[in-house]
């Protein structure tokens, strides 16, 4: 009997706590308006988010509170959240308002452009997709330069063995590694190389750019489009082929001679707040661009 009563009392208390929690939440927007606005939440492209995360760390470390950035702002600690999840996720979160800014490693689609028409689109830099192979692959000696047409045929599965590409190469199957269809990298590749031709059905879809680079580093028969940044980070372990006579170098990518590249974008839904604009300015400053370059990307030419 007593135990049951205790149980009831406990449940009642728990219920009250829950109710109190609900009440507290509904009051929140009015009460804590000023504190909430100062936090910045960003997220999206798994290519770009490490750069932004590093910049956010540096920025927070350097200024600590907002009034150190701009004296007219309150003395509130700087809090910047960065999360990753893909370009599509970045655009979606910015549109839904779950994040203040979305990160994309591809161009905005028309429908996304419409939903984000009130905000800003900042191009922070570019990333290129290099046609990467294992450093011991003989193709590097025999055919270090491919045409776009050849790259297209390899990825579409029309050229199935290395021998079919060139008689001097071994008669081994080409292992094509790609990112998931519909993802940022795969869209860029489609736009610049495949132009609507479907990727071979037996291409390995890797769950991340890191896994794709890993595949190329491990497998001597593999070929894949590896982000320019990853090649820089794994020097000596990944070799790249030039396309139509152009090596994927910073100059060639910036000048547009090397075609398989994509922009790194930051988008907002509304006009950025003062704090958000300050962070964007920081990203575009020399310090921010250095981080971007340090991680192997090509800074936007201002």
């Amino acid at each position, binding site marked *: *009997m007593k135990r*049951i*009563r205790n*149980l*009831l009392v406990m*449940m009642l208390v728990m219920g009250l706590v829950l109710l109190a929690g609900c009440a507290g939440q509904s009051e929140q927007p009015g009460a804590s308006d000023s504190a909430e606005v100062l936090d910045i939440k960003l997220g999206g492209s798994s290519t770009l988010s490490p750069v932004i995360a590093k910049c956010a760390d540096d920025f927070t470390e350097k200024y600590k509170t907002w009034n150190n950035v701009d004296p007219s702002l309150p003395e509130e600690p700087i809090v910047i959240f960065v999360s990753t*999840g*893909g*370009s*599509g*996720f970045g*655009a*979606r979160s910015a549109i839904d308002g779950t994040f203040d800014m979305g990160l994309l490693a591809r161009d905005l*689609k028309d*429908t*996304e452009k419409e939903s984000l028409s009130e905000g800003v689109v900042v191009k922070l830099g570019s990333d290129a997709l290099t046609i990467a192979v294992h450093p011991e692959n003989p193709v590097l000696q025999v055919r270090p330069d491919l045409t776009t047409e050849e790259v297209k045929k390899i990825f579409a599965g029309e050229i199935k063995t290395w021998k079919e590409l060139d008689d001097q190469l071994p008669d*081994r*199957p080409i*292992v094509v590694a790609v990112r*998931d*269809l*519909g*993802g*940022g990298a*795969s869209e860029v590749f489609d736009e610049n190389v495949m132009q609507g031709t*479907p990727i071979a*059905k*037996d*291409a*390995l*879809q*890797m*769950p991340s750019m890191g*896994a794709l680079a*890993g*595949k190329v580093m*491990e*497998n001597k*028969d*593999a070929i894949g489009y590896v982000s320019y940044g990853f090649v820089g980070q794994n020097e000596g372990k990944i070799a790249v082929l030039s396309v139509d006579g152009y090596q994927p170098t910073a100059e060639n990518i910036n000048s547009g001679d090397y075609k398989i590249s994509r922009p790194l974008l930051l988008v907002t839904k509304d006009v950025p707040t003062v704090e958000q604009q300050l962070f964007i300015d920081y990203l575009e400053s020399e310090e921010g661009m250095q981080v971007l370059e340090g991680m192997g990307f090509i800074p936007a030419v201002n």
Partner: protein
Amino acid sequence: MLNRRKQIANACVGMLCLIVSSCAVLLLLAIVVFMLQESWPVWVSQGFSGIAFSTNWNPLGDPPLTGIGTMIISTLWVAMGGLFIAAPIGFCAAIFLAEFAPPRLADIIRPVLNILTGIPSVVYGFLGAAVLVSFFEVNFNMASGESLFCASLILTVMVLPYIVATSEAALRAVPREYRQTALALGVSKPYLTLKVLVPLAKKGLVGALILAFGRAAGETMAVLMVAGNVLIMPNSWFSKGEPLSALIALELGSAEVGSAHYQGLFAAGLVLLIFVMAINLGLAFIRRDKKTG
């Protein structure tokens, strides 16, 4: 007076438990309804057979095609393959633990098996991708080591503890009388185990298999990392394939909300969910059968 209060209190507690437990049921229902709602347009435009039996997955094409036949086959292949290896090992281990192992040894083996369930699946997947896949590449001269077989091997390790634990419990649940009677008749211990206990615990053992199959079919991270994720129909255990769970994990992040791609992935999720739910329902029936029979 006191009795009356007691009755009211009892009723209150019963009511509360009912409310809380119906919430859990509602949650499951809500998930199913949500997935159905999100994927409804593709079910209408493609038809059931256009999704479940078609092998054309090209959700970004025009018109978008969301056939997940290859993924369903891959899921079945990977999960069945995992069970095929895990079942004999698991049953032998369970019989050994229940009947033959000295208590002290059993006390060591059991917790070790339980630790296997606690290892995060991404760790299994990582080990598989780093060790198994390159092992196959080097030793069997495969062009690339990813295959359904690799995924099955990893699933074997992952479902083994469930098979052992459930079937050991089933063996132990056989009433004492059978054991005593058999021993009184003077049969040997192996005879008792194989001819008396195992047939009696048959339903429990099948239940263990079904439970393990549900786990294996729903497992995502590990198979995503080693199955290879290609869109062609697997034609042997050593082909590459893309199980349903891997498809969803791989593509949901990049699918535009509301597009046919997004809806197709939800349709795939619904198929997987119904799959696993059906398996669990089957298990519940077997369990109920066991009690009444």
